[in-house]
């Protein structure tokens, strides 16, 4: 067991370090001037603004959810977890349906004589990033609120605190602890978000580093330029990931979002304010999805046959990548929990420091002298998706593996339970629930990913997210919405099947 985990860890390290090495080796042709500098500046600006806006808006939403109880609250919180699984390309398409040139909002504006507001460029990128990350920020901050011991709220009440006092003595110190982590997390995510920049960015004013890498590989055929950009992107990404890792304690998608109300919620205008905040946030998150469904349902009729092929390809990649990521994550988590070497932990989380597109660029550089890279489009996508989900899976499984080891490690050892019997009789049944959750998460993330595949695929070997993007790019919006609907249904179905399977198999 331990030897296997060491080999796995070494393999994971190599699969991240080799492409990064290739990137570093080929990085030349870098002119930190003109377009490159603009890309760097735009990348940082959009990530900083996205983080700031998402987290600022998340605070009142989290507070309203923390201090109010109403029917549908649990559902709303669950829904806040959904954008993490929502394929980015689907979110983009949904936003375009509402906010795009021919979208609902501009049609409404045109009816009263307002000029159209474009959805492309910086504000489009910000809109998509806030849409995707506001829910994550809400969940992280809500956890901070719920982690305050209820005694502290009761003490405040017994001392006659007014809401402003509560904010000053309880909520502000809590926020000071939680907000840096939330900001850093959203910043890190937006720094490497490729699909949003691909679809809503572009042009000299709105090109991110990742988009510039993609363009250098696909259109300029300038690999050393791409490698140079990838090197900068890696430095930024690693620094941001490291900061986020250090500043956060909770992952944002745990359970435990419910407990009896700790304090009497203030009434009056504060109550009305909370209602307004929740309605606005709910509308902002749900309206685009509703628009996508109304737009996509008729589009289902004229879907090209290629959608079925692409879906099959995507499902295969998702299932394989989930299987590998969960097996590797479990094996590494068990080894670390049993006191294995410390570097295994690093091996499991290192992919966080690199972005999928950077790893893809490195692999492109490694493969290109040997084979035409498009031939390996799907295997590379599988590999990169697996690596990118490994840190999440590992981080979710490690505490479970530690608890298992602390609770039953000695008993299992004293009975001579080990190897395959230990896995079958102890690990799989005890960890069925988190394993199912992780497999669902990994499958859905892999299913919806649009990154490396855009770098590698030419023509036929497309996955479903790439097909949606291509349909969208060729202005077949109806078909794109239909295909997006198929994609999001498949992603959620995969997640649900694994998660429910894990729950059912769980003994508790």
């Amino acid at each position, binding site marked *: 067991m331990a030897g296997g985990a060491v080999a796995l860890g070494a393999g994971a390290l190599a699969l991240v370090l080799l492409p990064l090495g290739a990137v570093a080796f080929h990085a030349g042709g870098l002119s930190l001037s003109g377009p490159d500098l603009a890309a760097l500046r735009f990348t940082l600006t959009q990530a900083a603004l996205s983080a700031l806006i998402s987290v600022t808006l998340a605070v009142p939403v989290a507070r309203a959810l923390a201090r109010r109880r109403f029917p549908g609250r649990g559902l709303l919180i669950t829904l806040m977890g959904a954008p993490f699984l929502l394929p980015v390309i689907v979110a983009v398409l949904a936003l375009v349906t509402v906010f795009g040139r021919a979208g609902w909002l501009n049609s409404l504006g045109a009816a009263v004589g307002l000029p159209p507001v474009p959805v492309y460029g910086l504000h489009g990128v910000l809109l998509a990033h806030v849409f995707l990350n506001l829910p994550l920020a809400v969940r992280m901050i809500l956890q901070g609120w719920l982690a305050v011991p209820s005694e502290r709220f009761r003490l405040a009440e017994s001392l006659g605190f007014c809401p402003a006092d509560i904010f000053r003595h309880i909520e502000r110190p809590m926020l000071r602890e939680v907000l840096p982590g939330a900001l850093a997390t959203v910043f890190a995510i937006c720094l490497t978000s490729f699909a949003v920049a691909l679809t809503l960015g572009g042009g000299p004013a709105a090109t991110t580093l990742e988009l510039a890498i993609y363009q250098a590989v696909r259109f300029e055929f300038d690999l050393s330029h791409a490698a140079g950009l990838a090197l900068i992107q890696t430095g930024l990404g690693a620094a941001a990931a490291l900061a986020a890792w250090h500043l956060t304690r909770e992952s944002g998608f745990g359970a435990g979002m419910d407990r009896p109300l700790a304090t009497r919620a203030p009434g009056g205008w504060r109550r009305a304010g909370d209602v307004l905040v929740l309605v606005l946030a709910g509308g902002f998150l749900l309206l685009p999805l509703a628009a996508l469904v109304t737009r996509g349902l008729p589009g289902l009729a004229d879907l090209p046959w290629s959608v079925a092929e692409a879906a099959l390809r995507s499902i295969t990649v998702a299932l394989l990548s989930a299987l590998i990521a969960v097996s590797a994550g479990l094996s590494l988590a068990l080894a670390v929990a049993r006191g294995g070497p410390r570097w295994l932990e690093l091996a499991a989380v290192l992919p966080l420091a690199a972005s999928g597109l950077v790893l893809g660029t490195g692999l492109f550089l490694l493969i290109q002298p040997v084979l035409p890279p498009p031939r390996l489009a799907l295997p590379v996508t599988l590999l990169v998706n697996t690596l990118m989900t490994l840190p999440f899976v590992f981080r979710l499984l490690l505490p479970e593996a530690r608890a298992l080891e602390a*609770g*039953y490690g*000695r*008993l299992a*050892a*004293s*009975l*001579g*339970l*080990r190897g*395959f*019997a*230990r896995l079958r*009789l*102890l690990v799989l*049944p*005890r960890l069925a629930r988190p394993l199912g959750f992780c497999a669902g998460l990994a499958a859905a993330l892999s299913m919806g990913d649009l990154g490396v595949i855009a770098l590698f695929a030419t023509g036929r070997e497309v996955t479903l997210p790439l097909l949606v993007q291509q349909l969208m790019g060729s202005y077949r919006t109806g078909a794109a919405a239909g295909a997006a609907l198929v994609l999001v249904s498949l992603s959620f179905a995969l997640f649900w099947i694994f998660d429910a399977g894990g729950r059912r198999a769980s*003994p508790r």
Partner: protein
Amino acid sequence: MLRLDELLLTQGDFRLAADWQVPPGARIALIGPSGAGKSSLLAAIAGFYAPASGRVLWDGRDLTPLTPGERPLSILFQDQNLFPHLTLAENLGLGLRPALRLTPGERARVTEALDRVGLTGMGARRPAQLSGGQVSRAALARVLLRARPLLLLDEPFAALGPALKQEMLALVAEVAGDTGATVLMVTHDPRDALEFAALTVIVAGGLAAAPQPTAALFADPPAVLRDYLGHRQ
């Protein structure tokens, strides 16, 4: 026969030395202040904890290279002695075969062991459906099935009431008598030692002293034991 050969355990500031042997089939109580290292000594004998120096020997054979499961012993912990997701029959079956692929004959032995400890017909239940006393009985039934010559008890009955604890100690005596096992038992309670163990090891001040007859020891306690017992006794 168990022999501790110049055994030395260390961990940070903690130190414990032991150098003695135990006659076969003896029942021995380990008593002493908390933190003195009673549990650590059991853990070292069981193989969970490598000694800084010295050896643990069984019938002259060095146990050091053996994993806990390979050592000629069974151990019962304070809690978590059964897997909660497995039935009683499966938990007992693990004592016969860790891979749990039992022959019909072995299944019959599991049933027999359940009968023996008074859990007739409860093989299909899970630990959560049992009382504390029944869980202890099931764990002892597994000890019976494993039939190892040494039994280590790390206060498995501490959470039970006095009457139930006595009942369990009587059952331990029976099980150990059946298999001829040597028993080492950690306890906080002098009465347990007096009733159950002919010999007692005092663990205090970095030393696990050689076993001495329990009755004589408590009739005229040495200073470390007097400190532990308090002055009322």
